């Protein structure tokens, strides 16, 4: 439901999306281009929230769309591709996180290309200044497991419903709850240990 509301908020019509899928399945490249344009913002943002790196996020989103193009023939014509895209994006993001953890030199670049935060001073003081807050958040998220991080990103940051998160992660609702519970508690502990005040 949250996904649908989100799509409505971004002026995306489900029926139009299904029509685009049908046309793209028939080989209409322009229709596939419109499909990409409709979902790229959501996918880029989700990928970035998972990996906190602009280049990696762009690679993930691009690969997700290319996989969608290969998957078009198997996709049901009347089915919205958004859940499928979410799942592919999450899987690619988790894979990127695993790869990054095998390469410690690949540091997080969560602050790259980020504009200065102009939030009110009282809120910033709880997490230090803006740059410190971003670094603290990125470091704390990096201490979570991939599934915990993905569950928090999809549920708390993207605002997906529990069923949608379960579908994107490819697991049951109970498993998603476990990831969310552990993730939120670990995030609090990570912020505390990193010097922040949760």
């Amino acid at each position, binding site marked *: 439901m949250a996904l649908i509301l989100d799509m409505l908020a971004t002026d995306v019509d489900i029926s139009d999306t299904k029509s685009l899928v049908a046309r793209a399945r028939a080989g209409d*490249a322009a229709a*596939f*281009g419109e499909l*990409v*344009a409709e979902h*790229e*913002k959501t*996918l*880029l*943002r989700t990928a*970035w*929230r998972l990996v906190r790196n*602009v280049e990696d*996020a*762009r690679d993930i*989103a*691009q690969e997700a*769309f*290319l996989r969608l*193009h290969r998957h078009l023939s198997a996709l049901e014509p009347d089915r919205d591709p958004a859940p499928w895209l979410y799942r592919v994006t999450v899987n690619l993001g988790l894979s990127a996180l695993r790869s990054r953890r095998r390469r410690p030199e690949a540091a997080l670049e*969560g602050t790259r*290309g*980020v*504009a*200065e*935060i*102009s*939030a009110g001073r009282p*809120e910033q003081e*709880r*997490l230090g200044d803006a740059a410190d*807050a*971003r670094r603290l*958040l990125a470091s704390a998220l990096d201490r979570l497991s991939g599934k915990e991080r993905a569950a*928090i990103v999809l*549920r*708390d*940051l993207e605002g997906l419903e*529990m069923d949608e998160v379960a579908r994107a992660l490819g697991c049951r609702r109970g498993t998603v*709850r476990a990831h*969310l*519970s*552990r993730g*939120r*508690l670990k*995030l*609090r502990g990570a*912020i505390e240990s990193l010097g922040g005040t*949760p």
Partner: protein
Amino acid sequence: MSCSRWHRLIALEVGGDLESRHSRRLEDHIEGCAACRDLADELRSQRRDLMRLDRETADGVTLGSVRHAVMADLAERRRPLFPLPVGGMRLVVAGAAMVILVVAAVVLRQGRVPTQPRVAERSIPTSVPAPTTAPAPSPSNTEIAEPSLEVPPPAPLETVDRPPLQLARGDLPARGHEMPPSLSAPTEPMTIKILTDDPEVVIYWIVDPKGEKENA
């Protein structure tokens, strides 16, 4: 139940993810447990800060668009291994391909592949040998002339100046003569029946493939 187990439920409750059957029991516990109440407040505050900070950060990230890259990648994959030239050369290549296809279709239709041209032009001698026998005397001469004991010398050969006769495709007559398809490649002697005004007189012209002819 220990507080650590309540903490897991609190972490779910702050996000609205706790099942309703556990909510009442958790509320009862939090009312009587200051540590769990503090934890719930901290987690709610943390979640609010996380969402706000992340939203502000994500909005500031220049993610751009991947559409161009995706479409370029797809176009690259669709590109043929041997791309056709552009512009006028494309027409030339297409025309050449068309000619090759037409020739191949004709050859396949005939069921044979021409290794060398079987249609050769050749000229035949311009002088046609005259008959070796003397021409038959006319009836009027036989009646008037006296019979001679000597055999008259053969008449000199007549030469006729004619342009070389061009034969084509299996000794067909000269160009310009339309022959029925069945006669285009004669293998048997050909008989031409010529009717005259006199129904009693019919001329048969027999032509064999070697060019010999007989009048009957």
